[in-house]
């Protein structure tokens, strides 16, 4: 294995580490420290935080997440198809149309069953 090829990666990693570290270090060394309650508060879009962080999510959230994950991963089948699209014939197009049609039916049934409603 030629180490010189990999030296670039090492140098790149070092630079990538140094670049953000230097300003943070300088700020820590030179900046004054005067903490007060507002400053130490958790930053959340500038709005005052309400309640505890460890709250229970609505169960609907999990259903959303599960549905999303399934549809997301089904898209995996589209990638090889799209990459090879130029070289495929009509059959592959029809097959993928059927696949997407089935996914659409799934989505439709989820909607009718009320799985997409938040309240």
């Amino acid at each position, binding site marked *: 294995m030629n180490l010189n090829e990999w030296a670039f990666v090492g140098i790149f990693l070092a630079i990538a580490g140094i670049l953000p570290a230097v300003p943070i270090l300088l700020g820590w060394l030179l900046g004054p420290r005067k903490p007060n309650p507002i400053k130490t508060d958790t930053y959340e879009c500038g709005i005052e935080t309400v309640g505890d962080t460890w709250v229970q999510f609505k169960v609907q959230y*999990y259903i959303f997440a599960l549905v999303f*994950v399934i549809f997301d*991963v*089904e898209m*995996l*089948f589209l990638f*090889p198809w799209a990459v090879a699209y130029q070289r495929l014939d009509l059959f592959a197009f029809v097959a993928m149309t059927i696949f997407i049609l089935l996914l659409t039916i799934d989505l439709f049934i989820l909607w009718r069953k009320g799985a997409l409603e938040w309240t």
Partner: protein
Amino acid sequence: MIPLWMFLVVGAALFAIGVFGVLARRNAIAILMSIELMLNAVNINLVAFWRYLTPETMSGQAFAIFVFVVAVAEAAVGLALIVAIYRRRQSVVAEDMNVLKW
């Protein structure tokens, strides 16, 4: 080039870690994660075998995608079951599932 056996060792090690996780962990979600680890170890094997042995056919790669998708379908069903059980019992520890004799 990295030899094939290195990939196989990584795959076997991950699979063994997954099996250990399933047998040793008590939390149902941790068991589910270990199962996912096992399936992904298999994916490493499949893609490595495909790249080194039969790069001219697609079956290894295609199989890996199928394993992904089926793993997700399984995880979705499993998580739904776990959420349903958690809502009633406030616990997903496998040892607490003792109404039926194991």
